[in-house]
C-alpha cells in the first residue's frame, strides 16, 4: 500500500463528503457519500478509482477539484494539491487552479461540448483564459495533441463542429482540451464507457499514450476493472463511499485480498455449455427495413433463427441494426421485405393486425428498467396486468400467481405493494423479467438488459435468465454489445455490422477461428482482466497490418 507521504502532487486525507437528499413528499435524508478516504498521487502516476454506481468514485474525482455537484458538501479531511489545501482556497483560489492545475474529462463528450462553437475554440479556451499560452502557441499545442491522440487531419480537425466528428473522436478532443493548458492532474470520469468496444480500445490507447508523453498525473474513474487495469499504476476499489482495497494495479488484479475485489475480478464466471441445434421457434427471413422518411435500409436481408428453448445472441456496435431487428420482430416497425415465421405461423408485419396470442408469445425486456415500468403502478399491478389481460385472472388467483412469479425471480413476499422507485436497479430488471414471464411466452426479446447494471448485479440477472430458461423452456433473443455477456448466455450468435449479419452460427463456431475481419476486431477489442493486454493487442494489430 502506498505510503501517505509529503511532496506528492495530490494528497487526499480522510476525505468525508456528505449530502442531503430531498425526495418529493418525504423528510430530507442525510447521505454519507464518501467516508474517510485517503489517496496519494505522485507526478506522472495514474490512479484508477473503481466501484459500482453510487460508490462515490466520481464524487472523489470531483473533490480533487474541490467541486461538489448540487448540494454535495465536503465536510471533513483535506485535499492537498501541490501542498496547498484546496478546501480552504476560496473562490478566487479555486478559479485559478481549475482548468489550470486540474482538468476534467467527462463521460459524455457529446453533452460536454458546445454544439455552436468550433472544436478548436473550445479546446484552447481554458489555456487562453489562464493565459498559459498565446493563442498562436495554444493552437499549435492543440494540433500537436490532436496528432498525438491519433485524430484525423490534425491541422484542420479543430475547424470542425462537434456534430461533424464521431463519438470516439469527440472523446479524444476532450482529452486534448484537458491536456492543452499543461495541467498537473487530469481527472478522467468514465471516458470510454459510452463508446463501442472497437472505439474504446483506440481512445484508451490514445489516452494512455498522451498521459505517458505529457507526464501528467491522472485519476481514471470507471466501473470496468479490465479497462482500468490497462491504464492505472495504482487502483482503489470503492464501495458505498468507503475504501475496500487500495494497492498497485498488479496486486489488485492478480492477488486481490478482499472478497469484493475478488468478485469483481472473477465476474462473468457463468458456465454455460451451448445446447445443440433444435427446431426454430422464430425464423426471420430476408428482413429488410427502414425508418419512415429515410432512404436508408437499417436492416439488409437479415436471416436468423431462434431455436425453441435456446438463446440467440445478436452482437454488434451501436448503429448495427440490432435493436431495429427487435422492433421488426415485435411489429413496432413493419419490415419492408421478408417474412417472420413464429411457432409455425407467419406473423403479420404490423403490430395492429396480430392476434392476442401472437402478442402474448413474444415478450420484451428493455435496457432501461426505469422507463420500462410505469412509475405510478405497483409491482403487483405491473406483473398482474398480463395475467389479467391474457388469462383473465382476477382477485386471489391473480395475487397467488404474482407471488409465484415474484418467487421465481427470487424476490419473495412483500414486494407487490412497492412502487418501482422503491426498488434497486437489479430488482427493477427482475420485475420486468417477471412481467414478460407472466404472459407465458415462447420467446423473450432481451434488449441490452444488463448494460445499465453494475457487473455483479448483471451477473445475477444472467444467472436468473439461464435458470428460467431451463425451467420454463423459453427462448431468448438476446441483444447486446457486450461479448462477455454473449459468452455467458448464448447458444447461437449472430454478429451484425451496418445492418447485415456478417457471421452467424452456433456459439462454438462463431467464437472459433478463422474469423472474418470484423468479428476479429470485435473479439480482440474486449478488454481482458490482465495487465499489458492493451499493448499486446495493439502490437499484434500493428504486425498484422505490416504483414498485409
Amino acid at each position, binding site marked *: 500500500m502506498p505510503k501517505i507521504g509529503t511532496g506528492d502532487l495530490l494528497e487526499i486525507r480522510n476525505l468525508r463528503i456528505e449530502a442531503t437528499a430531498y425526495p418529493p413528499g418525504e423528510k430530507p435524508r442525510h447521505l454519507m457519500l464518501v467516508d474517510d478516504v485517503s489517496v496519494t498521487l505522485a507526478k506522472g502516476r495514474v490512479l484508477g478509482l473503481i466501484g459500482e454506481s453510487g460508490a462515490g468514485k466520481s464524487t472523489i474525482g470531483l473533490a480533487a477539484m474541490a467541486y461538489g455537484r448540487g448540494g454535495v458538501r465536503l465536510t471533513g479531511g483535506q485535499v492537498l494539491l501541490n501542498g496547498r489545501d484546496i478546501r480552504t482556497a476560496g473562490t478566487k483560489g479555486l478559479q485559478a487552479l481549475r482548468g489550470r492545475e486540474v482538468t476534467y474529462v467527462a463521460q459524455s463528450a457529446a453533452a460536454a461540448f458546445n454544439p455552436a462553437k468550433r472544436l478548436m475554440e473550445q479546446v484552447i479556451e481554458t489555456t487562453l483564459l489562464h493565459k498559459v499560452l498565446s493563442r498562436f502557441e495554444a493552437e499549435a499545442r492543440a494540433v500537436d495533441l490532436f496528432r498525438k491522440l491519433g485524430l484525423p487531419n490534425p491541422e484542420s480537425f479543430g475547424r470542425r463542429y462537434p456534430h461533424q466528428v464521431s463519438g470516439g473522436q469527440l472523446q479524444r478532443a476532450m482529452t486534448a482540451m484537458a491536456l492543452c493548458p499543461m495541467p498537473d492532474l487530469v481527472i478522467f470520469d468514465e471516458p470510454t464507457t459510452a463508446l463501442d468496444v472497437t472505439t474504446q480500445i483506440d481512445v484508451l490507447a490514445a489516452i494512455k499514450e498522451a498521459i505517458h508523453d505529457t507526464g501528467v498525473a491522472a485519476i481514471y474513474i470507471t466501473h470496468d476493472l479490465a479497462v482500468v487495469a490497462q491504464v492505472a499504476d495504482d487502483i482503489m476499489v470503492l464501495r458505498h463511499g468507503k475504501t475496500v482495497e487500495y494497492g498497485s494495479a498488479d496486486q489488485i488484479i492478480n492477488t486481490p485480498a478482499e472478497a469484493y475485489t475478488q468478485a469483481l475480478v472473477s465476474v462473468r464466471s457463468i458456465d454455460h455449455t451451448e445446447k445443440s441445434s433444435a427446431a426454430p421457434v422464430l425464423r426471420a427471413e430476408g428482413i429488410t427495413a427502414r425508418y419512415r422518411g429515410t432512404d436508408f435500409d437499417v436492416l439488409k436481408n437479415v436471416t436468423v433463427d431462434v431455436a425453441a428453448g435456446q438463446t440467440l445472441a445478436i452482437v454488434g456496435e451501436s448503429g448495427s441494426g440490432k435493436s431495429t431487428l427487435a422492433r421488426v420482430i415485435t411489429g*413496432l416497425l413493419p419490415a419492408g421485405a421478408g417474412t417472420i415465421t413464429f411457432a409455425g405461423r407467419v406473423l403479420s408485419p404490423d403490430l395492429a393486425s396480430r392476434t392476442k396470442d401472437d*402478442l402474448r408469445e413474444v415478450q420484451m425486456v*428493455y435496457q432501461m428498467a426505469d422507463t420500462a415500468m410505469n412509475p405510478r403502478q405497483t409491482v403487483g399491478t405491473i406483473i398482474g396486468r398480463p395475467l389479467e389481460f391474457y388469462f383473465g385472472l382476477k382477485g386471489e388467483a391473480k395475487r397467488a400467481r404474482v407471488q409465484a412469479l415474484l418467487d421465481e425471480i427470487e424476490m419473495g413476499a412483500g414486494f407487490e405493494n412497492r412502487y418501482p422507485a422503491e426498488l434497486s436497479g437489479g430488482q427493477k430488471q427482475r420485475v420486468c423479467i417477471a412481467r414478460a414471464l407472466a404472459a407465458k411466452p415462447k420467446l423473450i426479446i432481451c434488449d441490452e438488459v444488463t448494460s445499465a447494471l453494475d457487473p455483479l448485479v448483471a451477473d445475477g440477472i444472467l444467472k436468473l435468465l439461464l435458470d428460467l430458461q431451463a425451467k420454463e423452456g423459453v427462448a431468448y433473443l438476446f441483444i447486446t454489445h457486450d461479448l462477455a455477456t454473449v459468452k455467458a448466455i448464448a447458444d447461437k450468435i449472430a454478429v451484425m455490422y451496418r445492418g447485415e449479419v456478417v457471421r452467424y452460427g452456433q456459439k462454438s463456431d462463431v467464437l472459433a477461428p478463422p474469423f472474418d475481419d470484423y468479428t476479429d476486431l470485435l473479439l480482440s477489442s474486449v478488454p481482458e482482466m490482465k495487465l499489458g493486454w492493451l499493448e499486446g493487442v495493439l502490437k499484434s494489430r500493428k504486425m498484422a497490418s505490416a504483414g498485409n
Partner: protein
Amino acid sequence: MRIPVSALLGMSITTIFVLIAIFAPWIAPYPIESAVGKVWENPSTTYWLGTDTIGRDILSRLLYGAQVTIFVALVSSLLAFSMGAFFGFLAATRGGWIDMVLSRAVDLMMAVPSLIVALVVLSVLPLNLTVLILVMGILDSTRVFRLSRAVAVDIAVMDYVEAARLRGEKQGWIIFREILPNALSPLVAEFGLRFIFAVLFISTLSFLGLGIQPPLSDWGGMVRENKDGLVYGKAAALMPALAIAVLAISVNLVADWVLQRTSSLKGGRGA
C-alpha cells in the same frame, strides 16, 4: 401522513366556501332581491357588510353569489378538463391525422380571443346556466388540450407505454392507466389555476351583462353593480372582489399540496 398547515388552511377555507354555497338560502339573513336598507349603508350590526347600490344586504347577496359562482366555475372547469385531457391524450398517443385535425382545430379556436368568442356566442344563444357552462367549458378546454398533449407526448414515448402497446392494450387503458396517472401532477396544478380563471371569466361576463342574469347574482356582477360606490369611498364593490381573491388563494393552496403528493413516486406514502 401529515398535512402541511398551508394545505389545512386552504382546505378549511375552501370547505367553508362550499358549505356557504350549499346552505346559502338558510344562513342568509335577508332575501336576495329585496332592498332592505338605505343605499350604500356602512357595515353595522344589522347589515354586517353594509348595503349595496339599491339598498340590498351585501352579505346575503355574497352568500347567494357564492352558490352560482362556485357551481358554474367548478362544472365548467370539470368539463374543460375532461374534454381537454381526453382529446389531448388521444392526439398524443395516436398522432398522425387525428393529432393534426385536433391540434389545428384548437389552434383555430385559440386564435380568436376567448372573451370575444364567448360574447358572440352568448349574444346569439339563449342565456341560461347550461349554455354558459358549455361555452366556458369548451373555450377553456383548448388550454387544457395543449397542456395535456404536451405532457402526454413525452409520456407516450416511454418504454412502458410501448410495452403496453406490445401487450395489445386498447387505447382506453393506455390513456387512463398508463398516461393519466403520470400526467396528473401538471393537470392538478393547472386545475387550481383554471378554476380561478373560470371564476374570473364568469365574473367578467357578468360584469359585461352577458353572464349570470338577474334575479341570480354572482360576485362579478356584484362588483359591477357597486363599482360607482368606490368614487364615494364606499367599500361595497370590494367585498365580492375580496371573496374572489380568498377563494383563489385557498383553492391554490390545496392544489399545491395535491401536486406535491401526486408528484411522489412512492404512492405518496413517504409524506
